[in-house]
């Protein structure tokens, strides 16, 4: 006895709809997502002596070098705020964005082993990456708050914390979405042709210089600013610094632009991703 056409639970066909994302299924696999995050965390510190301390070493050393190179040698200003807090805030935000982007851009290639053997919603993998990067950011962020605390009690530091710090979750959402979306698009493009992969490594590096991470927006010439405004990360980094340090000025329009940009890019990227995920095993 064959079930009626409506009784089948699943149909597999060659053709798929353009925007074929099964959010219900994605939700059903949320346990897997959490387990993958836990796995990432646990596995990255197995057989290390310092363990999670490594989370701090990287931003500390980077901050130190930025202070020496950009502040002391190149004499780029920091909007009158302590250089440590200025660079550290930029670095942890940028780290979050760039690790999200670079790790998700490898989704298909680095997981082809698992993907080739078992089905689960492929989006789980990149989402887990973003969440575990968010956890890592959380740790670095609390370190940043400690440093900030120290400078708050130094009267000459001129740090002004504003209520806009409440926007932090929105900033993090936007950054996560941006990193994830760019990563998804790149990973979808690289299943067959690996050319774009070569661009990612140094592309992200170059993009950092097009974002006010190592310099404040205020020292940028008016004619270059429009160019910087187009970068969706600009508003976020500036907004974050305004909220926590009181540097520069708040561009709510830029933040709104970043938010809109992130949403559109995200929808676009999962549409591409869902198109590629069904057949990528043949070409990866």
């Amino acid at each position, binding site marked *: 006895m*064959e079930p009626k056409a409506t*009784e089948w639970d699943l149909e597999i*066909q060659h053709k798929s709809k353009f925007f074929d994302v099964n959010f219900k299924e994605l939700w059903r*696999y949320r346990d897997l997502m959490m387990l993958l995050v836990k*796995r990432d965390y646990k596995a990255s510190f*197995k057989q290390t002596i310092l363990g999670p301390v490594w989370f701090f070493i990287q931003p500390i050393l980077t901050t130190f070098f930025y202070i020496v190179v950009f502040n002391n040698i190149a004499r780029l200003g920091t909007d009158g705020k302590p250089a440590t807090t200025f660079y550290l805030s930029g670095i942890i935000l940028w780290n979050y964005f760039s690790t999200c982007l670079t790790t998700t851009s490898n989704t298909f290639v680095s997981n082809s082993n698992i993907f080739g053997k078992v089905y689960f919603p492929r989006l789980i993998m990149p989402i887990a990456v973003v969440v575990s990067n968010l956890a890592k950011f959380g740790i670095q962020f609390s370190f940043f708050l400690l440093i900030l605390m120290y400078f708050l009690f130094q009267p000459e530091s001129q740090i002004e914390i504003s209520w806009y710090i409440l926007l932090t979750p929105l900033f993090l959402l936007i950054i996560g979405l941006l990193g994830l979306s760019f990563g998804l698009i790149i990973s979808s493009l690289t299943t067959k042709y690996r050319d774009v992969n070569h661009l990612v490594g140094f592309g992200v590096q170059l993009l950092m210089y097009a974002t006010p991470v190592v310099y404040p927006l205020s020292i940028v010439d008016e004619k270059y600013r429009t160019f910087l405004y187009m970068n969706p990360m600009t508003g976020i980094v500036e907004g974050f610094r305004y909220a926590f340090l009181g540097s520069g000025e708040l561009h709510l329009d830029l933040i709104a632009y970043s938010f809109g940009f992130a949403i559109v890019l995200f929808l676009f990227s999962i549409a591409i991703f869902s198109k590629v995920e069904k057949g990528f095993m043949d070409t990866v």
Partner: protein
Amino acid sequence: MSKVVLSVEDVSKMYRIGLVTGKTLKQDINRWWHTARGKEDPYLKIGEKNDRAKKGESDFVWVLKNIDFKLEQGETLGIIGRNGAGKSTLLKILSRVTKPTSGNIKIKGRIASLLEVGTGFHPELSGRENIFLNGAILGMRKKEIQNKLDEIIDFSGVERYIDTPVKRYSSGMYVRLAFAVAAYLESEILIIDEVLAVGDSEFQKKCLGKMNDATSKEGRSVIFVSHNMAAIQNLCTRGLHLQFGQNIEYGNIQSVIQNYLRQENGNFIGGKIDLSNSLRSNGKIIAIKQGWSENKNGEITNSFNMGEPITLKFEYDLGESLPYVLFGFGIETELGIRVATFNNELMGPKPFSRIRRGIASCTIENPQFAAGRFYISLAIVNNGADWVDFIEQAFAIDIEPVDVFKTGNVINETFGFIYSYGKIENISLDN
């Protein structure tokens, strides 16, 4: 009448073989240009039959072509075929790892596939952590795994190592743990690809038992791919034989296996079989030239009634005269299980000395083989242990069913490999 849980309709899959290069990009653009205008993909037409041993004209091959079958609830389907016949590709399509080029698959219920054991196992994590991770990858919720954790650990038999990183496991323990997780998956359809080949025989039995339970007690359906014909025969009710991506036979497992083996083993029937090019299992020279079987009248034939005397013969040329020569004849079932061995070490006469060329002959006066096909292995041994030549399954004979006990019932293939009279009595315990 049972329910259909999986329906595969006219499924085909084409692959492009060779390297990804600039040419591929050109083909992609051409394909995109055709489909964008609503035309048919031009490369679908030039696809070729997938025979891996032959050089093809086209870069495009059909690894599966027009596959149709239905799986009913509680049924176990065995898929057999040579390497590269398309078995794994079919399983990959069914488990949604890749999609078909054309055709349609309808599924009722959850489908769980075990194309590999321990997918997603992380070497640094402990056995317990990996149970959760692997279970979640296979589609279980954390709570489900938690509920079954004790059973899973118990089934795996690696309790002692459960908190040790799996990188310290032996490969057998690894497989045990991985299969245990899969065994407790709750799905209506289970797809298994040759994963039982690993693990010791005790564990293999346990797995086969578990799979049997899944179908007969829990009413789940299983699709099973293996090269182990004995396992397939035990487990499956229906079979699908694939060759070069095409469906050769689909139906009762017994007949599918039989026809598959007959085809694989080539045409060994009829007349004297030339063995000079046959595959050798052991030995130094090509000494056995041809082999055949004769009936009691000395006529060459491959067909014997049950109980009828059988004479097996082969012609040999040792090249030089050897001092202590043994002739061996083995009789095997289609699954390669040895049923009988005849050689002049076991049953005399003494080794033949100083022989060079001739015909070796073995007459079985009162054979007790039941009906079915049997394969004959031939061997020449010098000095007791020195293999001169050895061919396994050199040719075949067919034993025809006969009513040997005159009861009106013929003894056919289903009653085993040998027959023998047994006196059946009733010893009453009523009083």
